């Protein structure tokens, strides 16, 4: 029998155009290249300067999400896009896609959305594929057993021109999650706990495979939340073995294989999971059943505590001291009851239908606390449509939250949606770096449930208090 292999090794080997040598990296074929307005313009410029074409427009899909406005009047109503440079960037992507023959799901397309949400939704994200995008959260697609990672703009140009990348093989890291998550504890809490344990550079140079009972029990949307934040532990990719849950999600998606091609695809996908006895370079273990809802207190996603816990006291550590100064919080104090000015539900981490349902479940029959601004932004136009069909938007609006068109919105504050200086934002997104949501904004990362509960109380709140009573 051949040597047992990890899922990563199987996908890697199947995409070696030229294997790695001591002197040169491997040439790896890319099955799906997703692109968006922010990290592509300079890549298209290189193609133009060098007289090159897009090699495989059939494997390339563009959309716009980062710089796009979320206000309906600016998306559909003909009102000018407030940020002139963003409008220009959007027009540039339209021009580039038209000139190079790349399919674009543009501003008013009903299939538009955050790039990492629409790939799975359309069924172009599939097990065993290599998927790249000029965006670090491309790791999201690994939830399907794809090898998916973020690249820079120069590499976007490489893929456009050659459909290939020069890559060195990464190491593998198994994250084993035993047990089942308790009520009120979500995959977002799990990934925050994992990052807290690994640290923000613990995964550097590795591809993570999330394994174990808690992972197997998750829906695809939940698995995506977990893989999404792999990069926050420094890992470029996170993967989860495809199984019946994966196949059920993909069946009948607009672009998933059909008929005999579907059967062939599924039998191939069944061969992908890591073989019994395969070796990982590193392994960590997490007790899923022991986890609680998690909230970040500092300025990187590894600075995280259970919502029932206290901010640790690491005074004297310059990173900790700087974070406390920036956040205006104090060492040793409970994170519960920390102030909240803004609540953001959305992003490629938690902007899918199940996330909106979870927030709505907590919010139903309640009001957003006086003085708190809550923004709910669906991850795609499809999510928006489905949520509205269930009446979720009424729940949000009746509670006093704003309901918008899809996009990255307040996750990175480059589209007009920002948190003001000094304000506290409980956000379902993935980064709490200084200024991420606006100059001087103070971000606390949490699950949709915790975000909604905190919106109601106007203070950081354990969602279990509202779920139980």
């Amino acid at each position: 029998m051949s040597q047992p292999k990890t899922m990563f090794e199987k996908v890697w080997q199947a995409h070696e155009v030229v294997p790695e040598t001591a002197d040169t990296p491997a040439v790896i074929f890319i099955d799906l290249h997703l692109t968006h307005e922010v990290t592509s313009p300079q890549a298209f410029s290189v193609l133009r300067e060098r007289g090159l074409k897009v090699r495989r427009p059939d494997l390339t899909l563009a959309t716009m999400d980062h710089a796009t406005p979320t206000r309906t009047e600016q998306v559909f109503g003909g009102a000018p896009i407030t940020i002139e440079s963003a409008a220009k960037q959007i027009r540039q992507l339209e021009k580039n896609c038209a000139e190079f023959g790349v399919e674009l799901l543009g501003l008013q397309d009903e299939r538009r959305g955050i790039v990492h949400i629409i790939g799975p939704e359309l069924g172009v994200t599939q097990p065993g594929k290599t998927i790249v995008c000029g965006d670090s959260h491309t790791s999201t697609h690994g939830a399907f057993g794809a090898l998916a990672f973020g690249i820079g703009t120069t590499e976007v140009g490489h893929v456009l021109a050659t459909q290939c990348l020069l890559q060195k093989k990464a190491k593998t890291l198994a994250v084993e999650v035993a047990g089942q998550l308790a009520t009120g504890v979500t995959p977002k809490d799990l990934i925050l706990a994992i990052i807290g344990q690994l640290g923000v550079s613990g995964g550097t140079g590795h591809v993570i495979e999330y394994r174990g009972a808690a992972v197997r029990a998750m829906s695809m949307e939940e698995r995506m939340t977990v893989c999404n934040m792999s990069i926050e532990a420094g890992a470029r990719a996170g993967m989860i073995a495809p199984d019946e849950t994966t196949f059920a999600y993909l069946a009948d998606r607009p672009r998933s294989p059909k008929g005999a091609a579907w059967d062939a695809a599924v039998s191939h996908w069944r061969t992908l999971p890591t073989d019994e006895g395969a070796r990982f370079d590193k392994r960590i273990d997490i007790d899923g059943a022991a986890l609680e809802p998690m909230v970040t207190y500092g300025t990187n996603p590894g600075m995280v505590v259970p919502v029932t816990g206290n901010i640790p006291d690491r005074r004297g550590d310059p990173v900790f001291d700087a974070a406390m100064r920036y956040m205006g919080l104090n060492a040793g104090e409970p994170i519960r009851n920390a102030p909240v000015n803004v609540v953001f539900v959305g992003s490629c981490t938690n902007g899918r239908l199940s996330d909106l349902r979870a927030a709505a479940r907590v919010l139903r029959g309640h009001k957003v606390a006086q003085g708190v601004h809550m923004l709910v932004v669906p991850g795609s136009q499809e999510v928006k449509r489905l949520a509205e069909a269930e009446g979720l938007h009424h729940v949000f609006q009746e509670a006093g939250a704003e309901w918008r068109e899809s996009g990255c919105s307040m996750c990175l504050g480059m589209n007009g949606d920002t948190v003001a200086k000094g304000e506290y934002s409980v956000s379902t997104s993935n980064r709490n770096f200084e200024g991420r949501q606006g100059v001087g904004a103070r971000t606390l990362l949490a699950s949709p449930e915790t975000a909604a509960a905190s919106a109601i109380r106007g203070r950081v709140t354990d969602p279990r208090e509202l779920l139980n009573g």
Partner: protein
Amino acid sequence: MNPITSIRSRTVVMPSTNIDTDQIIPGRFLTTTTKEGLGQQLFADWRYDANGAPRADFILNTPAAQGCRILVAGRNVGCGSSREHAPWALLDYGIQAVISTEIADIFRNNSLKNGLLPIVVDAATHAWLIANPGAEISIDLQTATLTLPGQAPVGFPIDPFARYCLINGVDELGFLLSKNAAIEAYEARRGA
């Protein structure tokens, strides 16, 4: 890309751990369609106050930092967003090498592709560099060594292919394009 063989410069030191690419170039400056001029916005939120005036206490605004082409940063520099605007901004500002004990993957890749040298050093060398801001040091790519004043050269790891490209000014896209026959054969084999 112009060939790079060596850099000699005084250092500017930013000892913070986990300097992420959102700090190097904040998101609101990413609505550009070119690479030029980003040096103006490098570290914008640390460098300028609310009115856009330079903060006197930020290291890059001090007289000693002027003209420095080597940035010494705390552990895990360049984590977070994949934005290549981060190395573009550093280069446009005039930084040609970033030294740390750990450099995040995507940032390191992006830097190499633009001729910004990401140099990983051991803890002792790093501690010396942090403790001696403004030291005149040299980086030699041919020998993959770093020389601190009055000390023997110390080696640093660098991917051999990346080093070859940097020294010879080879651009990776050209290299990939030269593999066209292999790519075609792969596509034919896969029926993709």
